């Protein structure tokens, strides 16, 4: 554990886990309301490209983060209109959102490809805690978004378990008809949470350029993180704290590649890159099976449009 490279690996895993956690927390909110959104990847890319442009033109980190997040939310609004109001298939709509978001982001991002970003999030060292062995660099020397993500996970847990709004949200995801008869505005709640999910996905994308690699590249920026976030929600059985832990685990498996290369372990990079995806499948098969699903807490109405009958 005193191995400096290993400590660096752990610290990097935390940073790598943050965008996955943010995107997955957003998806968790949408799914808890009963709406599956497969557009995470597209919303992240839009968030990233918008944050990059705002960052370079304004120089303000927080403004870039907020505008990037809002761009993700705007894309999510399209999904909400299509699936909640127009009753389109959530799967087809989400996929189209990813295709549109990817296309738009790469089109708009063409002019900034290869450019450096003028500003990025820097770690804040918590003296004297940052000097502790292992825990220092891993826990007490990270950038603000890392801590914000942890706070957010706790807040969402509290929101779901302890607040009236959270209870309404859960009831909409479990049984919209019952919620409706209790006077809960199903459509409004779904709209709100789908858009909130998009905002978090946009923020996740923004963090990729503002906190990780300060450059924009068409396929390097998200490299499928949005899809991993989707899988993580199932992996975490729709619980925010498990999402956070799972995200760090996925972050670790993505960073392992660089660590082993630095150690001179001769494993082909392509094979190591497969790891997170294979891990996801294994986890899904073990945790996500039909019988277990009910026990692990999948929202019962997930994926189903709610249509109040009219005669």
């Amino acid at each position, binding site marked *: 554990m005193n191995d400096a490279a290993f400590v660096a690996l752990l610290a990097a895993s935390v940073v790598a886990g943050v965008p996955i956690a943010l995107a997955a927390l957003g998806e968790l909110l949408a799914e808890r309301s009963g709406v599956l959104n497969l557009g995470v990847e597209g919303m992240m890319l839009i968030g990233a490209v918008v944050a990059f442009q705002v960052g370079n033109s304004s120089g303000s980190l927080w403004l870039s983060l907020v505008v990037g997040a809002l761009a993700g939310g705007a894309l999510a609004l*399209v999904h909400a209109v299509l699936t909640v109001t127009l009753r389109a*298939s959530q799967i*087809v709509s989400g996929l*189209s959102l990813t295709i549109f978001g990817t*296309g738009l982001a790469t089109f708009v991002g063409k002019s900034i490809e290869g450019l450096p970003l003028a500003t990025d999030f820097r770690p804040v060292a918590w003296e004297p805690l940052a000097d502790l062995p292992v825990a220092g660099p891993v826990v007490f020397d990270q950038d603000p978004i890392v801590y914000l993500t942890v706070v957010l996970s706790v807040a969402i847990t509290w929101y779901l378990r302890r607040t009236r709004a959270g209870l309404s949200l859960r009831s909409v995801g479990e049984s919209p008809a019952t919620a409706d008869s209790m006077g809960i505005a199903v459509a409004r709640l779904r709209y709100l949470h789908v858009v909130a999910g998009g905002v978090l996905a946009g923020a996740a994308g923004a963090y990729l350029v503002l906190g990780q690699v300060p450059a924009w590249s068409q396929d390097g920026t998200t490299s499928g993180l949005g899809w991993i976030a989707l899988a993580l929600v199932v992996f975490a059985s729709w619980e925010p704290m498990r999402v956070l832990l799972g995200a760090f685990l996925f972050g670790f498996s993505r960073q392992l590649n660089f660590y082993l290369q630095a150690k001179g372990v001769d494993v082909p990079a392509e*094979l190591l890159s*497969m790891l997170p995806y294979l891990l996801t499948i294994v986890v899904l098969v073990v945790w996500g*099976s039909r019988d277990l699903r009910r026990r692990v807490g999948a929202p019962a109405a997930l994926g189903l449009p*709610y*249509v109040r009958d009219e005669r």
Partner: protein
Amino acid sequence: MRLRLERRLEQRWWHAVAAPVGAVVAALAVGAVFLAIEGFSPLTVYRELFKASFTSAFGITDSLAIATPLVVTGLAAAVAFRMNLFNIGAEGQLYAGAIGGAWAGLALGPHLPAPLAVAAVLAASAVGGLVWALPMAVFKAWFGTSEIITSLMLTFVAQYLMRYLIFGSRSYWRDPESTNFPQGRKIAEAAELPQFGTYRIGWGLVVVVAVAVAVWALIRFTSVGFDMNVVGTSPEAARYAGISTVRVVLMGLLLSGALGGLAGGIEVAGRAHALDPNGLELGLGFTGIVVAALARYNPFAILLVATFLGGLRNAGVALQTLPGARVPVEVSLMLQGAILLFAIGAEIFVRHWLRLVRSGLGPAAGAGLSTAADPGEPVGPAGRAEVTA
């Protein structure tokens, strides 16, 4: 006053045509906004787009060349989606099919006469796609694991596997003479799909049209196709009829995977002539989902939609070299996404219409724009199956 969605009392034939056409027009309008923001003239871009793809013989045949694999990936998505099985991993199945097809072209191609060698490539690619779809199908059929996530994760695995075979190792597929710039080994000439003269299209086009007809016939006339339709439209009814859902789900997903793999074989035999990661990673599998959804899962409509999207993609490439204004190739991906979003939004207006109602009268007071339909009306792809069948 509020807007309310109501079911149409009469459904006319042109409603089904107006929806997708309106979607294309609306998408072009949205695309125009973004083109203008980026400093391009939308009218010039759209005119050049049309000219590049649909006016000259070479333009049309180039569009058809791109449409060729899209037909098969479109069929792959359609077969699964109409059963409410969302295999979104045709992309990965295409890579696996390319690996299988290239193997047959290298190992069997030199020893077989031309038509047989081509057949071997295509068959091996279908098997490759089927094998790649196997975990997804098995986990879905027996454990109920979400096929959406497994098929997608396997796509990334297939992509890295293909790159590993060419860039990361001295595999059987890699050209041993290419050391600085690793490349795939060329398959035997007998295993290539012959082209029509100097045009870039060839027998691949004939093959995919035949496959489309075969898929249509399978759905329409066979008992397997019937079972698939029943499971797709009403799993309840299927259970009462004694249809084994496990068997039908397995068959649907494996057929979908085999079709995805076949697309890889057609690319290897018809265009790439080697396992070429750079030439194969074009998103053909993902675009197949767009093709299938726009065609409302109908095999013949898939032929038309694939040609249209093939033209759009081909034009995207042509636009890059537009004198005066180099429009990024990604513009076609953006337009595709926009068309798809509008198309699925317009879908509901085929059977519903908007009506202004005075507030407080409807039972659905409260929500701004309420949604209403007959209870039990099939929603989603299953509902569309009856239009296409």
